């Protein structure tokens, strides 16, 4: 299981990536993340992050009717969100390469 401290900095970028694939909603995002190996990521974990992404203009939201009654919030990526996602992935690759170099050298 990935530690929550480590997840903190990366989850927003990963959520942006999931949203970039197609317009989606909270529960579906959490399920998709789980399918990629992000264990124990519930809808409740990502909801505050989605609010923050919305507040910062990285995602665009739209309410659509759901089968259970209340309207469901759907998220799509804004242009700013796409730039943020690309910047995150650049940073992530730089970080993983540095960590890999360090560990491979040690071995």
């Amino acid at each position, binding site marked *: 299981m990935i530690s929550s401290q480590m997840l903190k900095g990366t989850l927003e970028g990963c959520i942006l990536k999931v949203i970039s694939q197609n317009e989606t909603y909270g529960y579906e995002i959490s399920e998709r993340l789980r399918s990629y190996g992000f264990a124990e990521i519930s809808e409740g974990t990502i909801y505050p992050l989605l609010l923050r992404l919305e507040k910062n203009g990285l995602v665009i939201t739209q309410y659509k009717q759901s*089968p259970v009654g*209340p309207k469901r919030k759907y998220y799509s990526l804004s242009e700013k969100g796409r730039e943020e996602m690309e910047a995150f992935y650049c940073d992530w690759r730089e970080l993983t390469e540095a960590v890999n170099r360090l560990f491979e050298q040690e071995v």
Partner: protein
Amino acid sequence: MNKRVRELNRLNNELDAKVEEKNQEIFTNMVCYLRGASISPYDQEMVRHDLLEMILSAQERGEELQTVIGENYQAFCDNIIASLPPQTTKQKVIDLLDTVCACLAILGLINIIMSHETITLIKNLVNGQPVSLEIAITLGDILAAGLIIVFAVLLVKSVMKNAFREEASVKRGMIKAGIAGAGAMAAFLLLKYIGKKIIFTVNILVALAIVLGLFVMHKILERLS
């Protein structure tokens, strides 16, 4: 509460009825806690709507609330609050003025209806005797109104802030509230005793116009908040 918030509030109240009994307490506690946070009324209703969608969808899938939200509901709510824009100073001032106007309108009306002068006025009208339209406002009336407003605001804030407290802690809180209530009652009785000094008199029709004005002001501020 403006039209947009009122509409969302009405919709959320309808959806509330669909929340299963086992989830009601947790949901009520979360909404209560969010109501006490420094976020706009629209954001409060928007989050309430999103939570309702989460809970009703989980019920539909046959999942427990803990699976969807996690076990620490207060931490979940704190994360939500931290993700939303805080109320501006202007919004806070409008909210406070709104509360004060609403409280003063209600207390003013009660004071007019229950006052000794109003009862005498009605008796004299029935008996066909000369009537006086003047009402005396005492120091006690003014201090009691101030005390009631402060006490009511603090009580409501305390209930919202402590929505997730455990049962043992709630019992201790109730004892503290009981002591505070007894203290407030003693203060009211003291004010009644020492506050008999008449500060000014006012015509009953003017007093009613002031009460109406305060109520209108409350309605205007409510729409602005």
